[in-house]
């Protein structure tokens, strides 16, 4: 979904010449002084909707007026525009359950059955554990009380778990229709509760309900099986506190307070501002004062920022002084020591090329050059695969350039076949040859094998502990790569190591979650409840090959956790219970409570736009 054709000309001129231009010769339209005008919010203006309606209709294409969440079936090959009957039932089921949760007395006189084999039944007493003196230590409960009880009792006791009405969230993840209808629903309750001695606790409950319906009008609920139930609560809460406002000097600025939806209506596509909002960050100590600083990439015409940490933890924004306030659309960046002189140099993936900056050790940078081999690269990672003592760079390039240039920005990409696409971009390995110069060594290293996928992320780890780093690449729309490094030559062993993870790969994390000293792998994917439902439905299943079907169904499963073994990995995603990361981007191992066990943090959400009706 990145701009396939970059519009800033690749420049292959002498960099000295360009350096002279930096700061001197500006494009005519470039702002001279910062000045923010104030205007009304959208509501004060009259939207001339009648034109939108007629205008868009005339094209004969999907219009903004058509389409609800159920009409456009996403994650399918056809994105059918027809409304699915099953989908309508699924929605009706949610409406009924929502009403029932609001008013338990309206529940039909049926029993809730808890699956005994999952040992996850409904709890009836609060048990809070955790040592309050040891910081944030949540207790995790599963009740073992009884096998079944009347639904209304069950709902009442659920309500009583909270001291005030909790937030309830229902997400249907499967629908099966035969003579009856079965819907599987993720039910989340979040809120607060009190102990008997009046202490306030935060509480969240995650359950999976399998609901059975008699297909009348309206639907009639005939049974609920509680497939899983987990609740957790904590005394001192929450663990994380949002301190951004005190740390960023420009917290109130439009660049921080304007989302990409705003900017993609205020900066043209010819200023390289695109909707996807794929802009990363890099943490590193740019001035050698022992405190980590933060470099932040942004879209075209919005300058990248460098936040330099002060002794009190706040920051000063120094991108301009440091010569790194690039306006080029930027994706990933790294702060790494490229010349082994003890300071952190900077590399930035921009729409035109990889920009390479040298640090003068005080946090001031000089543009030393660029490598044009991977325009519009996304994720960037560095390691020393040839063990020659300097850092080489691997760049992920998402899309290929086969599509004609009539479509740009958000509309420019199109993977095929959807579940196993090989028409993506070519990732490159840039070998560091000294003096901030790099050569494309992809083929020489053996990394051009299976190298035409839609790569979103890559990360290195020394899997076999032989002293050279191996590489995992997460690809959207299909199989991932695991390249084993044998003395600087790579072989793709993803299939034999059982980590192809054929899905919508977006993130790679290495870590040892089970503490067996063997690297495990957590891969960020797409958990799509719509995709899960639709790809199981009969009208979708018909006419598709088994492979395409399985592939497409697998696409929406969510994140994957692979436990590392001797030569192969084991997919433990479902048993570990870590697939539900929603539309997951960065999916990280992080021991957030210092208990020695790697927890998981997932940054997710694709596109939140003004319109509420989600695709």
């Amino acid at each position, binding site marked *: 979904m990145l701009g396939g054709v970059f519009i800033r000309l690749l420049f292959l001129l002498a960099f000295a010449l360009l350096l002279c231009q930096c700061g001197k010769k500006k494009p005519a339209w470039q702002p001279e002084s910062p000045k923010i005008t104030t205007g009304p919010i959208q509501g004060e203006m009259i939207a001339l909707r009648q034109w939108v309606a007629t205008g868009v209709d005339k094209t004969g294409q999907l219009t903004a007026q058509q389409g609800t969440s159920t009409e456009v079936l996403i994650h399918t090959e056809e994105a059918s525009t027809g409304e699915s009957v099953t989908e309508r039932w699924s929605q009706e089921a949610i409406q009924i359950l929502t009403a029932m949760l609001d008013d338990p007395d309206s529940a039909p006189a049926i029993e809730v059955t808890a699956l005994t084999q999952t040992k996850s039944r409904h709890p009836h007493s609060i048990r809070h554990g955790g040592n309050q003196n040891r910081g944030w230590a949540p207790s995790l409960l599963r009740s073992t009380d009884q096998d079944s009880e009347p639904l209304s009792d069950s709902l009442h006791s659920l309500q009583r778990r909270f001291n005030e009405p909790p937030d309830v969230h229902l997400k249907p993840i499967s629908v099966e229709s035969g003579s009856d209808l079965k819907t599987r629903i993720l039910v989340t309750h979040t809120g607060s509760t009190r102990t008997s001695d009046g202490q306030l606790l935060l509480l969240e409950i995650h359950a999976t309900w399998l609901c059975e319906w008699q297909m009348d009008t309206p639907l009639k609920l005939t049974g609920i099986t509680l497939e899983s139930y987990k609740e957790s609560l904590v005394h001192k809460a929450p663990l994380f506190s949002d301190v*951004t406002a005190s740390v960023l000097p420009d917290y109130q600025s439009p660049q921080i307070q304007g989302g990409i939806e705003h900017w993609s209506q205020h900066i043209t596509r010819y200023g390289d501002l695109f909707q996807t909002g794929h802009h990363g960050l890099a943490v590193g100590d740019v001035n050698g004062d022992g405190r980590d600083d933060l470099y932040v990439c942004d879209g075209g015409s919005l300058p990248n920022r460098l936040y330099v940490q002060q002794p009190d933890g706040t920051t000063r924004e120094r991108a301009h002084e440091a010569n790194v306030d690039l306006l080029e659309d930027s994706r990933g960046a790294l702060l790494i020591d490229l010349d082994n002189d003890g300071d952190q140099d900077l590399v930035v993936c921009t729409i035109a090329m990889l920009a390479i900056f040298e640090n003068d050790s005080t946090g001031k940078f000089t543009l030393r050059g660029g490598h044009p081999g991977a325009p519009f690269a996304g994720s960037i990672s560095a390691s020393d695969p040839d063990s020659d003592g300097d850092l080489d760079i691997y760049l992920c390039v998402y899309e290929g350039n086969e599509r004609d240039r009539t479509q740009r920005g958000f509309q420019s990409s199109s993977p095929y076949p959807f579940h196993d696409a090989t028409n993506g971009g070519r990732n490159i390995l840039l070998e560091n040859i000294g003096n901030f110069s790099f050569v494309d060594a992809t083929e020489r290293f053996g990394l051009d094998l299976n190298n035409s996928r839609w790569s979103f992320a890559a990360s290195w780890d020394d899997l076999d502990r032989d002293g050279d780093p191996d590489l995992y690449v997460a690809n959207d729309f299909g199989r991932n790569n695991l390249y084993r490094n044998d003395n600087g030559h790579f072989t793709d062993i993803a299939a034999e190591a059982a980590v192809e993870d054929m899905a919508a790969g977006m993130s790679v994390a290495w870590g040892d979650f089970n503490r067996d000293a063997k690297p495990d792998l957590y891969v960020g994917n797409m958990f799509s409840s719509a995709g899960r439902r639709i790809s199981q439905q009969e009208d979708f299943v018909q006419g598709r090959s088994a492979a395409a079907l399985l592939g497409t169904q697998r696409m929406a499963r969510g994140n994957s956790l692979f436990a590392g073994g001797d030569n192969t990995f084991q997919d433990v995603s479902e048993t570990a219970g870590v697939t539900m990361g929603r539309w997951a981007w960065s999916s990280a191992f992080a021991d*957030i409570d210092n208990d020695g066990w790697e927890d998981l943090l997932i940054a997710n959400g694709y596109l939140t736009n003004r319109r509420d009706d989600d695709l």
Partner: protein
Amino acid sequence: MSPTQDNSLKGWDAIMRQVTHGYSWSGQERNVCYLNRGDGTFVNVSYISGFDHLDDSRALGLVDWDRDGDLDVWLRNRTAPRLRLLQNTQGNGQPWLRITLEGKTSNRDAIGAVVEITTKDGSPLVKSLRAGEFFMSQGSKALHFGLGQHRDIARVRVLWPGGAWQSFPRLSAHKHYHLQQGVSRPIEIPLPSAPTVATKTANAEPRARQSPIHLPVKIPIFPSFHYRDQALKLQALPPSKANRVILLWSSQCAACRKELPALLKRYANNTTELLALCVDPIDDSADAYALMDELGWPFPWGFAERATLERLEHWQQILFDRAPTLSVPFSILLDSDHNVLALQRGPGDLTNTLPFTGRWFTNPVSPAYVYEDFGRLFGERFPAEGLYYLELAAQLAQTNKLHPELASKHQQLARQHAEANRPQQAIHHFDKALSFSPESASLCHNYGIFLAQHGQLPRAYQLLKRALQFAPDSEATKTALEMIEADLTTRTP
């Protein structure tokens, strides 16, 4: 392209179009946090951990920012706020260890190193140092180890990039050590006396406001821009000597009623010309006339033509990856050659600049590229106007690469006009097509036949002769020529 692939593309495009027009797609999703229970299972603690922000988050930077012995998190978001620092309040309670590395024969950052901690009573703790992971993210190079109940560290081993293991003795918890390759003694780095970062939560979150939009390349307004003047006479944009601001307004819109006098004031002592175009229906325009009388509006004004508004709506939408709705007040700034320089949604001074400075290290986008791209997008709904921009691109490009496309698109328009019985327009487009592709036999043939049907036999004869020159074997052309020859002979005595 197979039918399935075609369908796949159509479906994909349909989704893209929806999103371009403001639909969410897996939006409003809360970030997720799973706690490792140490028995192979995890539990969802997104809410009670305070990690469940609704942001469209992308990158995630792990760092003990406040150096108090736990991992804080930087989040890079698509939605506002674009950045979040989530401070971990776990603090110094549970034992932890922080390790930084320095390579000597290995790369100095020691990227790729593996650090293994063995505790006296527990299983090993292993982490490796990376530059770049997750999605477009890089965290701190300081490795942070939570030690849980196992505060007695038996041994720390480092596998340096290149393959050499090195052991370090006697490290204790709650400390930061710097380990150097080949140096056996760890260096203890002092910690700050008190954890930093005062917590200040923002009040109501501010929003980014409307600001003027400057085009990186000036783009001519489409030639069919028309309006009705006060006397309801149809007008094209009159020539101007200076820059001109065109304001679209409605008498029913409060912001417009304020913006009109503001505009007068702003440009009172300025050479900028003003044109105020009302979007109210002409048959319901009493309020508009009354307002302009009340203001004593001294500049030209009138009513925007519906066809012009439709084009303007599309014109300003295709400039952006997220197509905005056309709303009033809306103004555009043009130079004296009718090139659009800037747009403004809502009230405000168009001549204000963008809020941000910064530097480009690449060349700006070329007008030829913009006109070509813009022309194609505009042509999707307004083919004739789209061609106007494509022709501009062709002129600037100074190559003939766009000529075949221009010829074929003009010919297509010519055919449509011919079918709709508008011979003048058809001839216009045939001529245009011919100018871009003078040696196309089929074009000469089609144009010739069209002219013959409309009685222009001598010119038709010329064209068919020319067609024959480029396709000497065309029976259809030969037959047509014979018929015309016969006809011409019978007419000329």
